């Protein structure tokens, strides 16, 4: 399988006839789960993920008494691929969660100080869950885009007089999103850099680089994966490709 993919790549071809720097069609649909405070569905070709935001009132962490909490979690459901199994998240799901988390956290996408209700006592906790529906490759970019879309869509629930949350009544006040980070993953097979990989290409990759950047195209998080390496030139080229392709993903968010 890997040899086959490589043979194709050397000839300048991909299984689905795309160019190496060509993204599949990206669509974003907002408000797909009425139960969540915010939600979105992202499709990249046949890949589909749903992200949902739940808010709750919690005690802040002792080291950040005036800041809200942010938690990002990804589930690789056995529904979405024959390769994913039931049970607690494996290292693949954990890496996915953490890479997406880093892009959002390090870009300071959410103004966490605005989530403080009473310093040292009560803050809003923002929990973003990303769930895979169909894995046709590139879950990193799809998951990151779904997470930021769900946050864009998220509004606060009402707080009752006794201080508890009334989830049945939503306000029209949005979660304080001040940046819209985008993540783009560039993979390397042989000496070729490729974006938006298919599962077959992911299985054959030598190295992978996920780059997240903010509205001003400032790089804010990166993660290299895969067994191989990148040269200096390849890393610079990957960053250029990512920022260029980021425009397409940003357009899909509007």
């Amino acid at each position, binding site marked *: 399988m890997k040899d086959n993919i490589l043979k194709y790549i050397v000839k300048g071809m991909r299984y689905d006839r795309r160019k190496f720097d060509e993204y599949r069609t990206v669509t974003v649909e907002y408000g797909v789960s009425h139960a969540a405070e915010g939600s979105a569905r992202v499709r990249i070709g046949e890949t589909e993920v749903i992200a*949902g935001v739940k808010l709750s009132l919690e005690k802040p962490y002792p080291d950040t008494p005036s800041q809200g909490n942010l938690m990002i*979690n990804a*589930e690789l*459901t056995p529904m979405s691929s024959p390769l994913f199994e*039931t049970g*607690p*998240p494996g290292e693949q799901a954990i890496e996915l969660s953490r890479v997406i988390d880093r892009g959002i956290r390090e870009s300071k996408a959410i103004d966490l100080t605005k989530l403080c209700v009473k310093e040292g006592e009560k803050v809003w906790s923002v929990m973003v869950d990303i769930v895979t*529906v169909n894995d046709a490759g590139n879950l990193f970019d799809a998951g990151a885009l779904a997470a930021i879309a769900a946050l864009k869509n998220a509004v606060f629930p009402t707080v009752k007089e006794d201080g508890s949350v009334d989830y049945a009544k939503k306000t029209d006040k949005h979660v304080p999103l001040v940046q819209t980070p985008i993540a783009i993953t560039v993979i390397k097979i042989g000496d070729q850099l490729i974006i938006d990989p298919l599962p077959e290409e992911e299985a054959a990759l030598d190295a992978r680089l996920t780059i997240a950047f903010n509205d001003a195209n400032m790089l804010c998080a990166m993660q290299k994966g895969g067994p191989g390496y990148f040269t200096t030139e390849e890393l610079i080229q990957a960053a250029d490709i990512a920022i260029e392709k980021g425009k397409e993903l940003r357009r899909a968010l509007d």
Partner: protein
Amino acid sequence: MAAKAVKIDYPKRHDGRNWEDLREIEAKVGIIPRADGSAMFRIGHTVAYAAVYGPRELHPKFMQNPETGILRCRYNMMPFSGHGERVRPGTSRRSQEISMLTSKALMPVLDLKECPNSVVDVFIELPETDAGTRCAGITAAAMALADAGLVMKDLVASLSMGHYNGRIMADIDGYEDCDVGISDIPLAYIPTLDKFSLLQLDGDVPKEDLMKILTIAKKKAMDIYKVQQQALKAKFATEKVER
């Protein structure tokens, strides 16, 4: 949810439905290309996705049965799908029981003797819920099994009936279940066999009303059954036949 001790007056349904009306329903087959079979079923704001994988090799090996293949179902609410706080990922006592009941509800229409030692996995995921989730899951799973090309005696159509202050109603929603405290009766019906493969009751129902409930349930299940059949036909009508 258990019925409340003091029954409030509930003279008409809060969303304007008649007592025997279902919420708006929608079904789609083949929504997850990676799976061997898949389907979506929506009833009001309850949405269930189901994906079927298999028959495939069963692990761990000690669970293998040389006489027949087995059906394994997993029911799971997405963490943001509940009205209220986040649902922690992973299994709970509730989800494990529902997973088990789901496979028992589907087993009577399947025959897996042709594929010994193997498993048919059914994964049910709910992106949004407003009561009736196990029923929506079973309804979606039946379509997904048919989409996977498994030999089946029939589909299974499932819905939840309600009983309150002597009144029988179909397809109770989250408000009616939790806030009003209507007795909840989830059931699954196999139309061509005229048999029930799921029946539960949470609450109180006079024995005299059971027959009426089952009769109405059958009628309403037939409405769901028609939508299931249409969704399956729609997928295979659009699928290109390669020669």
